[in-house]
């Protein structure tokens, strides 16, 4: 097996005295989508945020996270991102007071040429609504903006937190397609509840349970095994969203 693009070892996070992650270890393969699964509140978002260095002030992070030879923890977020770590947060976090175009302009990184064509081709809506304040976009439109924002730049790894949440089925399909295409060139660590999307995209899967890794392996295998999905995710593989 090739070198992982990201390796997380023994990651522990405590926030306000609560042990939220307790020694999580997993690797992200250099190609394709690695999906992070688990029930509500197991710590998926916490994991992603710890990787990009956004643990809240009262939190405490232990363990190691490496991208290649580079250790990520303790480096400021903006450095990590400039170094090619793209992050799409769970609740979109578009800048409500800025227009769509301004949101995109903000994401440009110095020294690179932003791929506006690519983004506008994926989400024509963003082009059309360039002058609308992002805060007045619908939920789905905001999600497009949040994804479009990271795709302006070349990344070495994308962290994407529940991108299809609150999206219409048609857009879910579109987003899945976008991610699929993106994953051809950049590895993606994806948190996703929609198992249909997982089935379509994921190569590897990491399942968290109560702050620990409960299972790692091939995602398709996981979805095939009804017993496994039942015990890990609480659903039979047949019950995934249509």
């Amino acid at each position, binding site marked *: 097996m090739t070198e992982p693009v990201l390796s997380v070892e023994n990651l522990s996070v405590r926030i306000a005295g609560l042990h939220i992650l307790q020694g999580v270890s997993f690797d992200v393969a250099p190609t394709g989508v690695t999906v992070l699964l688990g029930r509500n509140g197991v710590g998926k978002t916490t994991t992603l945020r710890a990787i990009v260095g956004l643990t809240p002030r009262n939190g405490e992070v232990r363990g190691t996270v490496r991208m290649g030879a580079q250790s990520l923890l303790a480096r400021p977020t903006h450095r990590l991102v400039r170094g090619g770590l793209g992050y799409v947060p769970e609740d979109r976090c578009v800048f*409500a007071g800025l227009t769509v175009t301004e949101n995109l302009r903000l994401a440009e990184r110095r020294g690179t040429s932003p791929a506006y064509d690519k983004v506008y081709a994926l989400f024509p809506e963003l082009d059309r609504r360039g002058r609308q304040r992002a805060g007045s*976009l619908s939920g789905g439109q905001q999600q497009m903006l949040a994804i479009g924002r990271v795709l302006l730049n070349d990344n070495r790894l994308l962290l994407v937190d529940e991108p299809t949440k609150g999206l219409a089925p048609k857009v879910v399909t579109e987003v899945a397609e976008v991610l699929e295409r993106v994953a051809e060139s950049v590895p993606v660590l994806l948190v996703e509840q929609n198992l249909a999307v997982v089935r379509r995209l994921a190569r590897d899967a990491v399942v968290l349970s109560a702050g620990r890794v409960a299972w790692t392996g091939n995602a398709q295998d996981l979805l095939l095994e009804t017993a496994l999905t039942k015990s890990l995710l609480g659903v039979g593989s047949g019950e995934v969203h249509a």
Partner: protein
Amino acid sequence: MTEVKSPEVPAPPAAVPDELTPGHSRWHGLRPYAPLVALVVAAILPYSTVNLPGVFEGPLNSPGTLQLLAICLVFGGLAAGYDLLFGRTGMLSFGHALYFAAGVYGTDVLVTRAGLPLWQAALLTITGGTILAALLGAVALRTVGIAFAMVTLAFAQVGAILVARDFGGLTGGEEGLPLDVSGLPAALVGVTNTVNLYWLALAYLAVVVLVVHRVSGSPTGRVLAGLRDDERRIGVLGLDPYRFKLVAFTLAGGLATAGGTVYCLIVGGASPHVTSSELTLSLLVMVVLGGPGTRWGPVLGGVLYMYLDHRLTAFGTSDAVNSLPAFLSHPLSQPLFVLGTVFILAVYFFPGGLASLRTRLTPLTTALRRR
């Protein structure tokens, strides 16, 4: 509809609800009585001749010390009342000084200029102050966030201008208005009776703390806490945010007016200091210093602030400071320099206020106990 919150004034850090603070089981049975014990101790304090050199100028029962304590207690109460707005409901008013000033000047003018007996003057003033708060609140609450803060500031500024203008020689302008004590009960006049003023101040503080505690533990208090977090949601739950905010505003205004009345008696007059916007800012400082939304934090903050405010003048002129080299002694002899520096340090070293000190010290004490 967007789901983005406007950049309003952020809610102050919330109090940790009682049920969340663990590890006080031994004290649990006694805790409800702690306030009572504190009250009794404070009430019998004037019988003590203990000398705390450096802390107070004279023994605890000396008039100077009692006067200082009385002022501190009034401000403790004032801060607790302000916390009803700021810490419990999340309303940032920059005009709270107005209602305090209304109490001070109202009482003074009614007693000195109109010659009313004290109880009538006090009753009229407190009623008037409460009505004033209700009226101005009704207007100001049409805005939210910073706009609300600024409208209240504007109203308070009008009060300050009116006092300074000295219409009809009523307020004495910048010179202030000494209280005419001839009609006052003898027990409230004269240095030897300072202890009665102390008890009055203590009673005021006790009333405010009781009211704030009861109100914030009441069903209405629950709504106020909800307003602090999400006003829109309160509306959708079927409660009128405006009404509840107005009640809190009026109540806090009334409490402040009552504080003004007590303060007027203690200080024996009114001066335009009490109308300044700095006073509101200091109230904010007191509350945050103590810990917003906690029962004792604002009280502690108010008491400590006023204590420092009064005592630092003595500190600045003390020999210890004067013997320092000039680059130190000059700033240190400016009380405001020391006070300002103390705030800044307090913000850094007691985030969450003095009230959070106990929780912050818990690891330390448990570690010590284990040894």
